[in-house]
């Protein structure tokens, strides 16, 4: 069974530029999460999708971050414009459905904003 796929693995941009990350969850997994992990900290949830609907985006900085999962499969997280403090690893995770709690994580995208 293929795991959670993310791309790119690394990205370096200048502040005020825009960037997008892509995630393809495990096949059949209805629930998808995006986390932000700043160096030296634990992951922090940004947004949770159930199929193509948003379940929780309360911690997503909506003035600059957006995410979509249009067909209920893969997802894109965008930052526009980026700030220095957005430098972090962005992790995608998925689970089969609500009520099943083992989240499977992708390798992450390391973003550096200069």
């Amino acid at each position, binding site marked *: 069974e293929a795991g959670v796929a993310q791309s790119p693995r690394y990205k370096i941009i200048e502040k005020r530029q825009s960037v997008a990350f892509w995630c393809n969850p495990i096949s059949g997994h209805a629930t998808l999460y995006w986390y932000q992990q700043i160096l030296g900290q*634990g992951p922090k949830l940004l947004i949770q999708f*159930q199929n193509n609907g948003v379940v929780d985006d309360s911690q997503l900085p909506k003035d600059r971050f957006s995410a979509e999962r249009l067909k209920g499969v893969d997802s894109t997280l965008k930052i526009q414009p980026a700030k220095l403090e957005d430098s972090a690893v962005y992790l995608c995770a998925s689970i089969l459905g609500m*009520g099943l709690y083992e989240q499977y994580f992708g390798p992450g995208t390391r973003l550096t904003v200069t």
Partner: protein
Amino acid sequence: AQSVTQPDIHITVSEGASLELRCNYSYGATPYLFWYVQSPGQGLQLLLKYFSGDTLVQGIKGFEAEFKRSQSSFNLRKPSVHWSDAAEYFCAVGGNIAGNMLTFGGGTRLMVKP
């Protein structure tokens, strides 16, 4: 609000010695508890999880953890550490509240001396 505290930011042990990583949580209902391990440049791998039942849970790579409700703790243990165990370890809490959302601790970085 749910939270997780990992009091030890760094721990160094000698290879072959025993290990205990501490985790304290706050959660408003029955918690589901997890330990994840993250090697440099890698995503998070689940070591073990507690949902209910026996409070001593076994995981992969020889790890175990004990849930103590009275102390709000879920400490991770291993009787004999191997050099390959050097990594960052994260404790997380989730459950029926907030739709399976996981809250992570800040992590404990484990270093293993030869």
